[in-house]
């Protein structure tokens, strides 16, 4: 299967290891992976802040970049959910409507792609440690991916899983929300990190870099020893 | 009776909806799903009685099941439990049918104050209801799922009977039990379509009054009755 990697701007800049792991996992399960270099950001930071005009440039750039791809796979529920919004945004725009529909139809979040498209439930990784998982809001509610990450984590050898209390609660990231309403965001991320520490887990795992940066940043600020990992890190661990 | 400001108001709505006024010909579409009809579909009457009994636990309501012959005894026990010295009951054909009229006479002979709602007596009915210990009515339709008795209040069955006294007893002929509010609503809808006037007050009553307004603590018994008993009775 031919897969184009949608790296997402956060992983591209902040945590290239997530991109590397994603590529290696996909190759391991037999995909031929390419990386369209023209891709930029999905446009979400501007779109969600109300800057429709300012977001469309990125979106069009993404439509161009992935025009010829068969499948587009990215390590983020939120960014992929954004791609799924494109048809809605470009509705009635004769130049882009078709392309937007096409991209939405072929785009998948990493775990969703592995489980739902490839039919894989075990990627053969080994990871020793006590792990809890934060299901990010956009991944679960907007993209509707709830079970796939759990299915894959269950089959990681050596991994001890602990459930995160009130896991479906937002961590307080919310993109620009975190800097526009820092006071509220602080309360939310504080509550989330309390729940994380309550579990006694050594690792917090998630599928969205934004949320992980938020929770992780609060954990280190509070001097908590919990390490934060992207699910791709775990699935590619030997 | 008067209707004021209607035309300008509704014209504006139509305009904002981007079309001309609709004054006729609107049909309700067939909805794509109808989950309300799936609830306890095909359940027998006995199964519905069980559902009702179970639901009574959730709504802080005492549940009794009896035969017509034994209704009097169950009622007596319940009234005693509620320390009922002043009783108000609806003026209902079913009082005779279930021999409650003779029972009420007997109660009076025993010194209990019994007031059968009497439209002629006007507000006196309310005054009695306000100081009554127990109010008694029949249920006109009983909703198993939610544990609800439905009253089509009328001039014999004043709204006060099930509202003002401290406690309330609903007598539920078994045949009035339906799966849920869906069936009762269809009945009213169809009667309305056939030109029957809907009762001025349809009361769906589910157990005693309650409130969670103080720190989310459930308080049973606020403005309406504080205790409720349902008595299901095999039909005559």
């Amino acid at each position, binding site marked *: 299967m031919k897969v184009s990697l949608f790296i997402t701007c956060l992983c591209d800049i902040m945590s290239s290891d997530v991109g590397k792991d994603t590529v290696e996992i996909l190759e391991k399960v037999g995909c031929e992976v390419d990386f369209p270099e023209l891709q930029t950001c999905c446009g979400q930071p501007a779109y969600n802040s109300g800057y429709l005009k*300012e977001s469309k440039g990125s979106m069009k750039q993404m439509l161009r970049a992935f025009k010829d791809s068969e499948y587009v796979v990215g390590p983020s529920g939120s960014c992929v959910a954004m791609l799924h919004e494109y048809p809605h945004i470009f509705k009635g725009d004769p130049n882009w409507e078709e392309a937007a529909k096409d991209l939405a139809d072929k785009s998948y979040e990493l775990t969703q792609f592995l489980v739902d498209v490839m039919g894989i439930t075990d990627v053969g990784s080994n990871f020793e440690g006590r792990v809890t998982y934060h299901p990010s809001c*956009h991944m679960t509610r907007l993209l509707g991916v709830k079970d796939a990450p759990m299915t894959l984590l269950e089959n990681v050898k050596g991994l001890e899983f602990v459930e995160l209390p009130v896991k479906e609660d937002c961590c307080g990231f919310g993109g620009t929300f975190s800097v526009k309403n820092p006071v509220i965001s602080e309360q939310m991320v504080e509550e989330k990190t309390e729940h994380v520490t309550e579990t006694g887990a050594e690792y917090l795992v998630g599928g969205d870099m934004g949320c992980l940066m938020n929770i992780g940043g609060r954990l280190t600020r509070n001097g908590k020893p919990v390490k934060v990992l992207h699910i791709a890190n775990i699935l590619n661990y030997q | *009776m008067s209707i*004021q400001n*209607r035309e300008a*108001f509704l014209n504006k709505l139509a305009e904002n909806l981007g079309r001309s006024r609709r004054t006729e010909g609107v049909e*309700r579409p067939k909805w794509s799903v109808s*989950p309300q009809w799936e609830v306890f579909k095909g359940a027998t009457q006995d199964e519905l009685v069980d559902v009702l009994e179970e639901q009574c636990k959730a709504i802080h309501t005492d549940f009794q099941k009896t035969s017509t012959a034994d209704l009097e005894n169950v009622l007596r026990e319940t009234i005693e439990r509620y320390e009922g010295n002043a009783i108000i009951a609806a003026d209902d054909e079913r009082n005779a049918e279930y021999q409650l009229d003779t029972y009420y006479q007997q109660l009076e002979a025993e010194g209990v104050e019994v007031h059968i709602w009497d439209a002629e007596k006007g507000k006196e009915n309310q005054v009695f209801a306000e100081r009554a210990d127990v109010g008694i009515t029949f249920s006109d339709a009983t909703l198993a799922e939610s544990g609800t008795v439905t009253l089509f209040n009328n001039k014999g069955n004043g709204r006060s009977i099930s*509202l003002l006294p401290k406690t309330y007893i609903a007598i539920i002929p078994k045949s009035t039990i339906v799966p849920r*509010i869906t069936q009762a609503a269809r009945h009213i809808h169809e009667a309305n379509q056939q030109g029957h006037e809907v009762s001025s007050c349809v009361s769906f009553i589910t157990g005693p009054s309650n409130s969670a307004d103080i720190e989310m603590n459930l308080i049973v018994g606020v403005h309406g009755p504080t205790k409720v008993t349902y008595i299901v009775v095999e039909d005559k």
Partner: protein
Amino acid sequence: MSIRIGTNSFEHRVQEGIKNDFMRGAVSSAQGRFRSGRLKAAEELGNWEDWRTLGEEIRNHTMENLDFYLQQLSDQVSKRGGNVFFAETAEEANDYIQNVIKKKNGKKVVKSKSMVTEEIGLNEALEEAGSEVVETDLGEWILQLDEDPPSHIVTPALHKNKEQIRETFAAKKGYDKTDKPEELALFAREQLRKDFLSADIGITGCNFAVAESGAVTLVTNEGNARLVTSLPDTQISVMGMERLVPTWEDLEVLVSLLTRSAVGQKLTSYVTSLTGTRLEGEVDGPEEFHLVIVDNGRSKILGTEFQSALHCIRCAACINACPVYRHVGGHSYGSIYPGPIGAVLTPLLDGYDDHKELPYASTLCAACTEACPVKIPLHEHLIRHRQIIVERENKAPKAEKLAMKGFAKWGSSPAAYKMSTKMARTALKPWTKEEKIENGPGPMKAWTDVRDFPAPSKQSFRSWYKTRKKGDEA
């Protein structure tokens, strides 16, 4: 009161909310209970998504034909001896009601809980005109005695603890017992009974009116709405113009959705459908009935992309699911409609000037959208509001606009974008210590005030990928 409450700035209100430990504890545990109640009630049905679809379809059809159904409703009410008044503004509604009371020479008004009467400021208007107005819902009564606005649309006194309530009862009504909820409630029952029996006017809201027969349906637990509509000789019901359903069959679906979503009950203790005046020979119920149908800004929403906001059945499920509401409480929203639906509705009804912060008081986590029993896409409406604030109202901060201009250039130019992936680490170097930033510059400050920011990777993904590819080829 009107829709707006308080005069403090949004930031100030939020600070106050966050400092209020009791309120936050109360809201948090209430949310927990509401949530599990709602989920359990939905689970019992098994096909909750079908129910939501049905709710949405009914609301949609009703709104698309609102003029038709309101006409039918008013005809039916009139046929059953009721008067109907269509009020375009709050003033018109209040004037009409004042006049009715004046004509009846009414002195005492008992009210059951109604958000729309809060919205139009009816109590103040009636008090000004010399009426005594008594709120009879327990929560509303507490707030009325304490002159405090509601903080929740279903349990309005959620922010108050029993000790505060005891004090209020003592100061205002001479209460001398404990702060046990049962005793407090019993006191309210005794006090308010007197008011019910002596009132000449009863005022209610309306959960749903039924167009086909003219019934006004009230959904309550305490029984006060039944008293309000059984004892006084004159009844006035006030409804937002969107609060109706075509038929009884639709009524039961929406009532089922409402009670399950609001409080996790299959039905509340009392669902009461009242039609017109009492009939010949009946003792209870009003001899005179008025239905006041209120627009007050709603019609502006019809026909716009916000139309589905009018589908709201005021169940508060979105409020109970909202993590922002949990931390800041209802009063922070500065509106009688708090939480997600408040953030959507308030700017629509009352303009952006005083409420432009509300659409941003959300992480767009969509917990609200998921909870809504009639599938209102609340988080999408919030994004739409933000677009309007930026583009039409031009109320966005300058620095933000500048940043977004920069974003637009960056995102549409692969070269600029690529450059940034290369430069990020170096650019942040001066602030980076041990692979993290604790005191970020400029716009990063708001982030690092609260949490650390990680240092960008040593090698960007792109350069790794390039090297790797070269290695493959070699």
